[in-house]
């Protein structure tokens, strides 16, 4: 089963919300955290609703609305969201009030909004959409689980269009807490993230929605062909990962030579980037080009949704932007793109995106 990617809407640390293809330039800054460049929400969401709306809901509703607009106002047959941590800021707000006020709660709104499925259900409410509505919250698998569910829906023959999204927000507390676990680098030039051969990475966030459709649209011929997820121990030997990649590629009727571009989830953390280096040097042949994406969006659980967006624009425009291209020369013709990401060597995910014809 494949799903045509017929529209997208994405809010990220880059100028993506107002661009239909690659933005004119890429943002960089000296930091260990990338935050989203947000649109003027009033153009996308009823201002009355906006007033008390948490930021993650604004990001989710606006990017899904952008996607719906670009799809020609399709009412999706299902709304499926992946989010590693859900509405984290609301959860922290409620937790903090509860802990500081000895369980005396003055505002219930953060509790209501802290529910992991708040984004998906608010989208349904805005669209008055009564269809299937599910939220996956499993770290680095969250977005891929949503995509797999969408592919199953299309295979089950009662769906034409599925709205799928990946969304996570970064918060102060999250930065501080995970700083203790040595997740972050000292501030770096973010676009040059991979030049810093040290431990840690940069935190990121984003909200990316896609319309996955059974039929290709008028000008869309880019399709998600499959996803594959697996866990390993964090010290798994390279051959374990290689055997899963082999399996995935063969299962899709391809050979590793058929991959024109592989988008890698390298995040600049020397503890975890080794497998990517191994694959580039020892697994793929000279025919495959490589790109990265985390210098653009940072590290977060649903960053692969950003990678999927990058894959679609690369296939559309047939070019790999220089700042994220790892190969001396980008491939001439790009037809088959694979995304490989892992979270601290434990959750590994693969996605295959191809252009027809």
């Amino acid at each position, binding site marked *: 089963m494949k799903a045509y990617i017929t529209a997208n809407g994405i809010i990220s640390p880059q100028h993506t919300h107002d661009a239909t293809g690659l933005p004119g330039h890429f943002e960089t800054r000296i930091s260990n955290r990338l935050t989203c460049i947000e649109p003027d929400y009033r153009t996308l969401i009823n201002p009355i609703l906006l007033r008390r709306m948490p930021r993650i809901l604004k990001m989710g509703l606006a990017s899904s609305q952008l996607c719906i607009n670009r799809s020609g106002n399709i009412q999706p047959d299902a*709304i499926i969201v992946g989010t*590693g*941590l*859900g509405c984290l800021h609301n959860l922290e707000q*409620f*937790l*903090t009030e*509860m*802990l500081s006020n*000895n*369980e005396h*709660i003055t*505002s*219930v709104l953060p*509790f*209501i909004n*802290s*529910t*992991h*499925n*708040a984004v*998906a*259900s*608010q989208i*349904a*409410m805005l*669209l*008055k*959409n*009564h*269809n*299937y*509505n*599910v*939220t*996956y*919250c*499993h*770290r680095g*698998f*969250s977005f891929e*689980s949503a995509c*797999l*569910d969408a592919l*199953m829906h299309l*295979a*089950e023959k009662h769906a034409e269009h599925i709205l799928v999204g990946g969304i996570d927000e970064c918060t102060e*507390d999250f930065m*501080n*807490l*995970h700083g*203790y*676990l040595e997740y972050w680098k000292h501030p770096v030039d973010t676009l040059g993230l991979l030049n810093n051969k040290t431990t840690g990475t940069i935190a990121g966030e984003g909200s990316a929605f896609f319309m996955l459709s059974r039929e290709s649209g008028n000008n869309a011929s880019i399709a998600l062909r499959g996803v594959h*997820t*697996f*866990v*390993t121990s964090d010290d798994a030997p390279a051959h374990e990962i290689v055997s899963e990649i082999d*399996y995935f590629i063969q299962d899709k009727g391809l050979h590793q030579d058929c991959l024109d571009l592989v988008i890698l989830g390298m995040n600049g953390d020397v503890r975890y980037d080794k497998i990517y280096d191994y694959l580039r040097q020892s697994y793929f042949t000279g025919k495959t080009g490589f790109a990265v994406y985390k210098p653009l969006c940072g590290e977060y659980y649903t960053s692969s949704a950003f990678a999927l967006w990058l894959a679609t624009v690369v296939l559309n425009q047939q070019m790999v932007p220089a700042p994220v291209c790892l190969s001396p020369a980008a491939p001439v013709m790009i037809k088959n793109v694979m995304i490989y990401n892992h979270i601290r060597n*434990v959750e590994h995910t693969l996605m295959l995106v191809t252009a027809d014809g």
Partner: protein
Amino acid sequence: MPQRVFVTGVGIISATGNGTGENLASFYDLRTGIGNLSHLASVHSHIPVAEVNQSNEGLAEIAGADLTEGKYSRNTLLALIASQQAFADAGSPDLSGRRTGIIFATTTGGMDLNERYYKSLLQEGTFKDYIPFFDSADCTERIASYFGVRHNITTISTACSSSANAIMHGVRMIRNHNVHRILVGGADAITRFTLNGFLALEIVSPTGCRPFDQFRNGLTIGEGAAALMLESEEMADPSRIICEITGYANVNEAYHQTSSSADGMGAMMAMQQALEIAGLHDHDISYINAHGTGTEINDLSEGRAIEHVFQGGIPPVSSTKAFTGHTLGAAGAVEAVFAVLSIRHQIILPGINCLNPMPELTFRPPASVLKAVVNHVISNSFGFGGNNTSLIFSKA
């Protein structure tokens, strides 16, 4: 052709007991699990809850987990216990390879650890080793690691319908030939976060919940975990088959973030679509295990939906939440296990605390366990965000 999906093993730990035997005994004895908080320290200790009667140390002992070696949230301990039971009940089947998986569900995951250590973590950075166990995925990944499952692992979080959706996802994974054997379930521990949230919403009963009673006054927070082993027709050992899952549907009411509509439109659509998928008619259903939280609005809305869908005659309806409390993210799985037990033992489960049936409805829950021919059972689970799921369990 889609594969048929069979339940070959179940496991449960709730306020009404550890294992299917203790839970069944509670139904026969009409013994509720609702009582006072004893294992969680909270200023709201006067509020009745349905707590699993074990300390974390006690749970760890049952689960065979070493608390000095590893760090476990209460949620993960509960989930491990239920999963071990389901695995054993299914005859300890092979879970290796790419065609097996684990789908679990929760609303708050490792929140008990989070709320215990959050302050000191932010202030001093102490207890940082607990951070990785705060989230919703930890529980699923630990169960997967325990059973050596490496593929098809994920976690669903859709409020109080979470684990019903995990079961539905597992069924669809088999029907779509992605897996041939999958462990599905859900878990939630009572936490101060949850208790305070529902108290602030003003939908917690001060006396203990009374589903479908005219004078019902809110829900009772419960805790627990339940798991089901699902296997494809090809893989299932016929002697292990307990029942089949034939129908499932998830719809969104798109009405209100925390409330259901008075006419029960979402509940109605979920039950109707599940019947359609199963190829069954309303008169085929032998028993409805209702969501039945005991809040004013849920029971009215769900009751009306049941009356609308079952116009040809309403089968026995009960909510087992008067026994187990509302186990939130675990509720869909806990009540799925009850639906399975209803078929396995050919019984209808009672609904207690309904002394004055609702005048708006024509049915009242049976007051004790009834022997009956049980062919098909509907289990309803509804959650915040208008998330409504119905599952149908059928005699195989």
